[in-house]
């Protein structure tokens, strides 16, 4: 259940990346993968630290607090993809200017 909520949260946050310029590595789909992966991974890490075990929260363990664990992860994932996209863009510009 926790996984479902994290994916939902990641997907929800990803929808707002449409307001950002498309500099994501892999475009909007890259941002999607970043948001979902980040939401799940960071959700797992935070929950893992909380319960001292690597596990997905079940139905009874999923509350609003657990759902919110996905937010930093989704943002980190999106930011990472964005920064990588910018880095690649700069590298491309630099390569083409040196030619």
């Amino acid at each position: 259940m926790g996984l479902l909520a994290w994916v939902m949260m990641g997907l929800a946050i990803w929808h707002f990346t449409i307001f950002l310029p498309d500099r994501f590595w892999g475009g909007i789909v890259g941002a999607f993968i970043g948001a979902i992966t980040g939401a799940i991974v960071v959700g797992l890490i935070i929950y893992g630290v909380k319960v001292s075990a690597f596990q997905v929260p079940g139905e009874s363990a999923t509350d609003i607090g657990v759902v919110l664990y996905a937010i930093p992860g989704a943002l980190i994932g999106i930011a990472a993809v964005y920064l990588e996209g910018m880095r690649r863009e700069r590298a491309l510009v630099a390569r083409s200017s040196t030619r």
Partner: protein
Amino acid sequence: MTDRRRNTLILLIVAGLIAASVAVIATKKTRLGLDLKGGVQLVYQAKPTAQSKVDAESLNRAIDIMRKRVDQLGVAQPEIQRSGADEIDVALPDVSDAGQAENEVGKTAQLFFYDWEPNVIGPGGKVATQEPQPQSITGGAQAGGSVFGLPEYEAVLRAAKRPAILRKNDTTLEPGCTPEQKSECIYGSWYLLNTKNKTVLKGPEETQQNLYANNYKVPVGATPKVVRVNPGTVLVQARPVENEKTGKVTNQSPNSWFVLNDNYVLTGADVKNPTQSFDEGGGGTGAPNVTFGFTGHGQSVFQNVTKEIAHRGQEAQLPGVGKEAAQQHFAVVLDGQLITTPSIDYTKYPEGIDASTGSQISGGFTITSAQSLANELQSGALPIKLELISNSQVSATLGKTALNQGLIAGLVGFAVVCLFLLLFYRVLGAIAVGGLIIYGIYFFALIKLIPITMTLPGIAGLILTIGIAADANIVIFERVKEEIRGGRSVISGIATGYKRGFAAIVDANVVTFMTAFILFALATAEVKGFAFTLGIGTLLTLFTAVLATQAALGAMSRSKAVTHPAALGAARRGGGWTFDFMGASKWFFSLSGTILLVGALAIGGRGLNFGIDFKSGTRIQTAFIKPVSESEVAKAMSAAGYGNAEVQKFVNKSIGGTGFQISTKTLKPTGVKDIKAALNTKFGNGPNSPGTKNFSSTSIGPTFGKTVANSAVIAIIASLLVISAYIALRFEWKYAVPVLIALMHDLLITAGVYSLTGREVTTATVAALLTILGYSLYDTIIVFDRVRENVPRMPRAAFSQIVNRSMSEVLTRSLATSFCTLLPVLALLLFGGETLKDFAFALMVGVASGAYSSVFIASPVLTHWKEREGSYRNRRARIIRELGSVPAYATTAAGEKEDVEPQQKRKRSRRGSLMAPEEPGEQISRDEFQELVRDLDVEGRPSSVGVAQKAPPEEPEEIEEQRDPAADLTPEDLVMKDAPKPRDKRKRPRNKRHGRAR
């Protein structure tokens, strides 16, 4: 073959099939499922025994035996089928006693005959005959009686001391298993003991893991210990305790056990012609018993063994002691419990008992139990152990009500779809309605012919396919209208409309069919009915909605009814939608993001309301003859020993007004029977009096719930994979990703809505979710199909302009198909009764979300992604350079909307002009391109911006030289993935100095 002949032939085939269908409908009976006619459904999970593993062969053998037993019960039209890898689904229509059905059908009925004394194990681990006081171990004259047995805990410990004795027919040793302890091996039997209070918590189980299956939790305070009893040793329960005077059984299952060396001499397979009879021989008690004969092998073994027993008795005879003390015994064990332990009178049978006249089993039988045993022996023992994991019972009245509700919902759905088609498409609509009626006749005939067992989910599938059949017509009709409005004649418009709409319909229907197939392969039996009707219906629509209606329209093409565009609803040349779909997409993304955010929080805060299908438990729904209150029912439940039961009052027409829902932990059919009897006693005049009415129950074990959840997840993942592969093949892999994102969006929004509304998630919801997958895709494919078609037609437009144009062209079509599907779904929601309402709700949310996401999620994602491609980036850069921004639609310099297919193109020259590739997506050759330019008369037109501003130069080589970095692709570059690669590309002369193309 000319079109006319072809149409006539198709119409003749259609008419012939209608006649055949009517004949089938008139002569064959409709097979109704349990939920529509009432009855008992039992789902068993197979487990291995010492003699057999669970595989296809043993399951099929078990099904054959179960079928024989059901036949003996006299049940009409039973359905016994395999479900998944290890489950057997038994549907018994018109049976009202689930407990009796369980006893009759699923009992293993493994019968073994033992020579008693040399096989009972004593405290030293040796057989009783080698122990100091054998009679205290075997029971002496009271052999097998409960007085001499051990408590189960002690019996297990005694048995566990024995070494393994493997016999030839012992198949429990799995390949790779060794006698050393291996928890995953099937080797002997496993027990979980509580050493603190010396009880057996669980067992026997085939593997150690099974002891903890279904999240079994050891009771708090217990000291668990796992013990294995090696192969070759078994525990048998003592005979049922009987009242000495009356002979009635006072304790069927005493805690008294014997440890046996598992060296049986005969099995149930050696018995023939078992019959329920009465003990009426000399000195007979007149009590019910079971008489039987032996097979040839059985006869000789029986005689030899009884002779050996007689000799042993003779040897044990001590002077001055009665012969009863010395007599030895023969034990009959049925499903792990001693049934009888007759002694062999060595004075009467010194040479053993001649088995040619048969034998008998007697003791503690009632007529019913004796009949039951005789039946079980007659049909044979099940080769595997069957564990009841789910059972449900539906009253006939409830079933009838559900059927009526389903039929009403179907009829209303059909009527509103027809009305919509007639209002929106006039003559075309009338033909579509004709197609729908033919579809209905064919489908009903198929249901009877195959035969398909109609269940409530099946009816839902049928109603949904009405929408799908109408959708196919809408897709084509919109295309026909488009072609006619574009300047084609009615006849040509019809032909082109069908031709161009067909690919989209095939794609969409193939995807729906694949979803239905996956659902059928992986889902539980209840959902299979839905999947089957959906799959068959989808295939059938291709015939009725495409072939039949095309032939009908073709045949009518010269009649006055269709020669005027107004008759087809194509008189007005609509300007189409001019909305900037891509520009507004950010706001729709925000809307979706917000809905998902709320949904995610709702899942955290409220969770999902999983039904017992997933959580396991027993749910009883009943009404009462006389008015009772919730607290009275709760008290009655408490008095019956179910104090933890949850009682809820509800009002439902199908149950006859006010009803009560009682939820408890998972109960066996006998438990449900006890509750019904208790309620009848409390609110009627006795256990069998009609205190309750419309009593129905569903019991789901934890294993079944887990299976349902797993199969749902597998089905969803499999559907997504198959769908992605199909889209990638038919379109381009980049088209598959937005589709997946849109599907995810739809599923998660539906989950969020379920959480917000608190609706129960059942197996029907899972079926609805999978249908949403298929349907959402239907819509997206319609949109993407047009994008695919427009890409080569707009060689200088930005991708967002192509998508905007495509949207404006197909939005009406998309809205019409969604509306048309929603109509029958709405009918289901309003008239379909409780079960179908839940299903319809999920479908309604999903279909609405699917239509929305295909336009506002999938297409913008595709646009954003495709615009990163070099060619489209260049186009966009060029348009911005020229205009300062990218207009929503490709426009001319005069600001007019640039037509994809300009007016001039309709006027074909005698030599036949070319305006676009004949087949959308197909590459055009260089010569064709030149021809296209001539036809467009680009030079003579005002310079258009964004689409056709520059006239292509005469020589292709010059294009290459004049290209700037933001130049567009040449038509040769605009090749969709499914188009063949150009083969006739001329090799350019190479610059000899640099070796590069000039």
